[in-house]
């Protein structure tokens, strides 16, 4: 049972990936409808899902995907054009397939719910509706050409030999459809049918395939492309493709031109120049292996000989390749590959690395305390190793954000259709990496922000034209790294935020008072306040119960922040800033009194001495002059524990922290330096605590708290300046 479950899990994963690919392919077809590779991948997706569902006996899936597959086959053969309508139906079919798979996986035995079945029938009707007649015609036309007989001409043609197995029909393979598809690649000069296997009398089973084909085929396509035609038949058919003589010279030249840096296997060399495909080689290797098993005393035939015998390559090519192989002496490079790893195993590894970091800090402390000079070197090199292990372990969990981004293509497409707007999504920075756990949690806020941009940001085409903008609106998704954070930007070229409208609403809701003098930035930030909505009527897109306040809360829960930048009439840019990882950070340890705190190192700009003469400290106003700039500061000790200001302070330092555009100083008593910080959650009791985001265990076993720089700055601004809520960054530059 468990093996079957495991197999089902693999099936579910595989199907999900295939469906995702299929969606991407469909969306890219909208712009490039002629891309045959994309159409092929669509076909492959449906075909593979059909095949694996059949293995598990999910007949509902098989039935539906079979229809979709046949339609895609026609598209592939050029019998049916692909248009926006078909793409829509196919997208729906993809969704339907996903639903079917989910149904089959969750309630294996139960019958299909009526709604699902009805959807399926409707889609099948839409898919197949009008081209049944086409099918008949093309069948006939092929039949006419296969009449030929006699000798096949070798001159300058590919020689393709197809020996279908008897079960081919029963496995759903139709030789004709392959031949028909072959014609899209070039011209079939001649077809020779070989009926030698055909039984003469009653033994003949009309459901079996006895016919073999030899085809002279003229095409500029390479061998891989031609073989790909018969990709799906490879289990049921013996395929041999011999390149034309004119190609021979080309292959020989290519062989000579191959670099000498690696010794390659004969098969690989031939595959690389295009004379063979990997399938040919695998096939030959199998028969070689079979020979070895059969007659162990006799030396097995070399691969080259087998290949020539199997008529997949010409003798001169093999000779040349062998010569080339002799010339090069080095070992071949091993294949780079991906390994699928259970996420919980990775999580466990990262936890262990976290403990390792703490113990290594503890060891350093002991080495220092006892003054073991000879152990110092060892400790230092171990420390270096531990920190590179930490970085590598964290990198394991890093994924590119591109996959998350490309999901929004579908959202943009669907929503813009629904809204009758013409909107194009541009994606950049998809290769930017961040922690998988962060990626998972950013999906919902991103979806909301993008829907907002589509719904409220971009105007209708008519309004856009009237405003002198192109009718097509654009939404840009961008990501990049900046000082230990990833910044994700959602930019639209829509109407922008209407400050007056926001102010009116905020006044009406009592968020602000009429006498408040707010900057543009502050007004824009008001949209993150709960209960403020400037849209005149709610649409079904925005009525999802997730407001901008929830978006902001979700992002802040990830120790991130969100900034908004909007010019009325020109568009809105929302920037989300997130830490790269939630597990381990580089910290900067400071002390006030006997308390120690960690500031994320990525936010520390510089440290300066708190010198009354140089910095013009203004004790009443709480700011200093930092090289001509005003730098507000916060005395951490006073702020946290309400200590009464000590008149004769010791030497103090100012840690200048930077958060986005905002700079501020934290005044502390001691600077302890950099510290690898393993973030430990503080738990539910402290979940509403502002200013502290977590804790870490120090080398001496004590706990130090990690400061939430943004939270502290905002709280300080809130307290010391105006009592209006949601005033965020105070711009200094």
């Amino acid at each position, binding site marked *: 049972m468990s093996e079957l479950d495991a197999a089902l899990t693999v099936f579910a994963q595989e199907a999900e990936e295939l469906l995702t690919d299929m969606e991407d392919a469909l969306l890219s077809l909208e712009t490039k409808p002629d891309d045959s590779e994309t159409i092929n991948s669509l076909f492959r997706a449906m075909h593979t899902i059909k095949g694996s569902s059949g293995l598990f006996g999910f007949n509902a899936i098989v039935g539906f995907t079979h229809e979709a597959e046949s339609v895609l086959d026609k598209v592939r053969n050029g019998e049916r054009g692909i248009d926006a309508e078909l793409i829509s139906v196919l997208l729906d079919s993809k969704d339907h397939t996903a639903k079917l798979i989910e149904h089959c996986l969750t309630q294996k035995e139960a019958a299909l719910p009526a709604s699902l079945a009805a959807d399926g029938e409707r889609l099948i009707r839409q898919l197949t509706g009008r081209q049944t007649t086409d099918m008949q015609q093309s069948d006939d036309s092929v039949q006419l050409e296969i009449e030929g007989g006699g000798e096949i001409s070798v001159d300058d043609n590919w020689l393709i030999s197809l020996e279908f197995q008897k079960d081919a029909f029963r496995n759903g393979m139709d030789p004709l459809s392959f031949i028909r598809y072959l014609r899209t690649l070039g011209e079939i000069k001649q077809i020779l049918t070989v009926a030698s296997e055909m039984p003469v009398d009653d033994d003949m089973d009309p459901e079996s395939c006895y016919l073999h084909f030899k085809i002279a085929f003229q095409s500029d396509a390479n061998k891989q492309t031609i073989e790909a035609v018969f990709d799906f038949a490879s289990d049921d058919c013996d395929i041999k493709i011999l390149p034309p003589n004119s190609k021979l010279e080309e292959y020989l030249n290519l062989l000579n031109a191959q670099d000498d840096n690696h010794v390659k296997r004969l098969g690989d060399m031939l595959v690389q120049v295009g004379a063979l495909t990997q399938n040919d080689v695998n096939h030959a290797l199998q028969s070689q292996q079979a020979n070895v098993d059969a007659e162990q005393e006799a030396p097995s035939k070399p691969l080259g000989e087998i290949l020539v015998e199997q008529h997949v390559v010409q003798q001169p090519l093999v000779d040349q390749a062998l010569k080339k192989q002799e010339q090069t002496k080095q070992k071949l490079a091993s294949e780079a590959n991906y390994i699928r790893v259970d996420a919980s195993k990775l999580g466990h590894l990262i936890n262990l690395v976290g*403990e390792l970091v*703490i113990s290594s800090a503890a060891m350093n402390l002991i080495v220092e305390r006892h003054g073991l000079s000879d152990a110092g070197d060892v400790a230092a090199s171990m420390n270096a190793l531990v920190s590179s292990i930490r970085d590598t372990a964290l990198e394991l969990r890093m994924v590119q954000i591109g996959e998350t981004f490309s999901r929004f293509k579908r959202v943009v497409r669907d929503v813009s259709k629904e809204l009758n707007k013409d909107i194009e999504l541009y994606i950049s920075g998809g290769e930017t990496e961040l922690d998988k756990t962060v990626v998972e949690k950013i999906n919902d806020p991103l979806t909301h922000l993008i829907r907002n941009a589509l719904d409220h940001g971009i105007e209708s085409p008519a309004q856009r034209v009237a405003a002198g903008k192109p009718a097509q609106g654009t939404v840009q998704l961008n990501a990049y790294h900046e000082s230990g954070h990833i910044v994700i930007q959602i930019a639209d070229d829509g109407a922008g935020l209407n400050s007056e409208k926001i102010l009116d609403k905020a006044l009406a809701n009592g968020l602000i008072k009429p006498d408040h003098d707010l900057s543009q930035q502050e007004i824009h930030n008001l949209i993150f306040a709960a209960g403020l909505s400037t849209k005149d009527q709610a649409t079904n897109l925005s009525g999802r119960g997730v407001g901008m306040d929830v978006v902001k809360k979700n992002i802040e829960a990830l120790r991130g922040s969100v900034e908004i930048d909007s010019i009325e009439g020109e568009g809105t840019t929302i920037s989300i800033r997130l830490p790269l990882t939630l597990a381990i950070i580089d910290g900067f340890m400071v002390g006030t009194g006997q*308390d120690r705190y960690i500031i994320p190192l990525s936010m520390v700009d510089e440290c300066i001495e708190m010198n009354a003469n140089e910095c013009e400290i203004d004790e009443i106003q709480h700011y200093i002059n930092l090289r001509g700039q005003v730098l507000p500061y916060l005395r951490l000790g006073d*702020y*946290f*524990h*309400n200590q009464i200001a000590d008149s004769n302070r010791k030497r103090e330092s100012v840690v200048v922290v930077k958060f986005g555009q905002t700079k501020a100083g934290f005044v502390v008593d001691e600077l302890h330096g950099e510290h690898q910080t393993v973030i*430990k*959650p*503080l*738990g*539910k*009791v*402290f*979940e*509403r*605590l*502002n*200013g*502290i985001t977590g*804790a870490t*265990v120090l080398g001496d*076993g*004590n*706990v*130090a*708290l990690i400061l939430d720089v943004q939270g502290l700055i905002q*709280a300080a601004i*809130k*307290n*010391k300046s105006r009592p209006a809520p949601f005033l965020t960054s105070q711009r200094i530059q």
Partner: protein
Amino acid sequence: MSNLIRRETGHAVAVQEQVGQYLTFLVGTESFAVSILDVKEIIEIANVTRVPLTPDYIHGVINLRGSVVPVIDLSARLSRHCSEVSKRSCIVLVAVETSEGSHLIGMLVDEVREILEIPPANIQPAPDFGTDIRTDFIQAMARVDDVFIILLAISRVLSLDELSLLSDLAQSQEHLIAASD
């Protein structure tokens, strides 16, 4: 300590019912008890890191074998003054169940006394008034040697919702103070 474990053999009827074990400890000079089933561990008071911007009853956080665990000052939580940490002070670690799973919380007490077996017959419901701690913190009153010991309702005393809520309140109060000076 001769009375460490006592059995109330006089009550034959009560023997049939399950006899509960309770950990008794001192807060200030008063005795309190909690069911031994709630107690995970008793540790000596170690280095406690205080957490800023929290009310008095949050004593701080400790490192318990690599996890960061909050410690509640039980005396302050029961509306008394903050405990003075002495040689006899201990942290009683209890598991508080919530919908999201079990959370470990430490209670700072002034002295851990003993484990008592108290038959259900000796346990009475809490009086409606007459005690100076919140009545919902009292699970029941137990009579031991003709003296009443308050059995604490751990889920109420260490209610995570309330603890986190109050730390919110305290914070805004502190901010008000900070803003006014």
